[in-house]
């Protein structure tokens, strides 16, 4: 599904290398988690994969089902099946949540050569999916993320993910700023989307999210590299001992 080889990335505006050779293979239907100390490059990786500007790829490659991601515009990556659930979803005053969702869904369908959803079809689908995420009609009508609580913003991200049916989902600290119940709700939303043809990359600081979204593989990222990979037990190790031991191990 997602294949990252020796990915090296720096900042556009200053001479600073963030990713220093990341290798990652995620197979179809797998759930991988990335943990790591602050500043290790986790969020940068999610941004670079989804096409945010401000970064320069100096070496390496990233492909989604064989397609070169790094060569595409963000909207092309989305149409190819990539989705990033933002750590800080952006507030967009003046754009209605429904309009936004429908435009996105139909733009992707169009890009893939599929028929666009009619207003009726769209409404039916969005209502059903919103309901399971406890998103009420008022939230759908409001401008995108404006006046949403932290939990509402994250649920809105999962709603978008559900509506867009991506193949590769990256969740960037989706658990940050969520209380226990909200985290559970979000995790349920993610679990409902798990399928053979859909893979996940879950970026998190805390093992707790991984109790709800069970990963197949856990990676530890530090200083722009993946320094260790293992099973779910690796997350527990981090939770109990912190990163110090792992960092010392590699050093």
């Amino acid at each position, binding site marked *: 599904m997602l294949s990252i080889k020796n990915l090296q990335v720096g900042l556009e505006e200053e001479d600073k290398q963030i990713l220093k050779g990341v290798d990652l293979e995620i197979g179809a239907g797998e759930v991988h988690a990335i943990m790591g100390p602050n500043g290790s490059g986790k969020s940068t990786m999610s941004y670079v994969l989804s096409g945010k500007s401000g970064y320069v790829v100096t070496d390496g490659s990233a492909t989604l089902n064989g397609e070169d991601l790094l060569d595409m515009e963000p909207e092309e990556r*989305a149409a190819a099946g990539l989705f990033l659930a933002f750590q800080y979803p952006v507030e*967009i*005053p*003046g*754009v209605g949540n429904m309009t*936004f969702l429908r435009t996105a869904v139909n733009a992707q369908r169009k890009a893939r050569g599929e028929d666009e959803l009619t207003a009726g079809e769209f409404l039916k689908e969005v209502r059903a999916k919103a309901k399971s995420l406890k998103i009420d009609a008022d939230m759908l009508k409001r401008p995108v993320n404006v006046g949403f609580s932290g939990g509402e913003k994250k649920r809105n991200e999962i709603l978008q993910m559900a509506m867009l049916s991506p193949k590769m989902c990256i969740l960037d600290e989706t658990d940050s700023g969520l209380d226990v119940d909200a985290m559970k709700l979000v995790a349920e939303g993610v679990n409902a989307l798990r399928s053979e043809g859909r893979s996940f990359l879950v970026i998190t600081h805390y093992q707790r999210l991984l109790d709800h979204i069970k990963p197949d593989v856990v990676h530890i990222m530090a200083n722009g590299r993946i320094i260790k990979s293992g099973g779910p037990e690796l997350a527990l190790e981090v939770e109990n001992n912190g990163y110090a031991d792992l960092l010392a191990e590699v050093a």
Partner: protein
Amino acid sequence: MANVQEKYDVAEALIGASTPSGGAIWAVAARETALANLRQMGAPHRRDEYWKYTNPTSLTAVDPLAADLFHTTEVRPFEMLDRIKLVFVDGIFDAAQSDDLSVDGVEIELLSDAMAKDIHWASSLYGVLEARGQSPVARPLAALNTVQAVQGFAIRVTGKAAKAISMVYLRGSETGDAMVHHVIKLEQGADLTLTENGPLAARANTVMEVEVADNAAFHHVRSQGRDHQRRAATHIFTQLGQESSFKSFTLTVNGRLTRNEAVIEFLGDNAHATVAGACAGDGDFLHDDTIFITHDAVNCESRQVFKKVLRNGATGIFQGKILVKAGAQKTDGYQLSKALLLDDDSNFMAKPELEIYADDVACSHGSTCGEIDDDAMFYLTSRGIPFKIAQDMLTLAFLHEALEEIENPVIAEDMGARLSDWMERRTG
């Protein structure tokens, strides 16, 4: 100074020989007052404080430049309203294309008919509000209009108007000036929606004097013509009574030069005024909103909300002033002017002014000038929305704040759709 003499020479050239004669004594007097004022002020000049950003030369040239006629098969704005339509062609009222001048709760009369009558309510408004509005800031083109205009309507509203009144300003000629002058009086408790659309002429000069009596409400929505080379100088003068409401919104897309002035005076307590506008300009486009609001009563609220989208070297100007006189306590004055520059070639100049002589007031102003937010663009495109569509969505979202000032949601939606179409035509 050379430029001083030039102001007076230009004014004389504009006055020319075309000053109408005859009419009732009050009408003659109003024109004479305006003429004297104009001779004293001179024509607008680039060195005048309020013409610093907009070069008035093309508005004061004796012969206006031609402007290509704009053709479209689109439905005109305000067609969906329950209204009567008053059509002007090249600035001349065309009765054949217009509806009967009959609306319950409203008396509508041609300005020229009203001005021929010795006793007429319009005598307390025609040229009177305009003359009041000449101080402290001179508005010579409005005075010129009072001197020369013969076209327009005298409208008196005595109750809730059963229908809206729509002025439709069509063009048949590529060249020429047009002047229209409306006087509108809303009696106590009256309610009227007035719309205007179209370019009027290659060069238009309009004046609207509106008296809104106690508890009356005036709604004004305007869509200025899409003719690319047209020029316009518009003026609204209004006086507001107690608990009255005045709301004016202007949509402007295209036009080479547009100067929209509004002079609003609160005379009764607890009244409300909103003057708002959304404009979108591409290329050879200059749009200037010049607003003067005087609070001379207690507990009145005024709102100015202007949004401009500019690209390819288009220029936007905002000069907005709130004057709070001594004693005008509990005034709430809000002023917002924002421009979205879609490229580095476009310009926005804003001059917000507050002059306050009362101590218990809340006045705020905000002027910003920016480009499309990168984070919002990334968010939208990362969801698969193509770049151009995302850009249009955010541009429309930017204008939304001004559209929200339109009270009638059907009109607001129509105005939004027109802006959206404008963007679609430009981004293909």
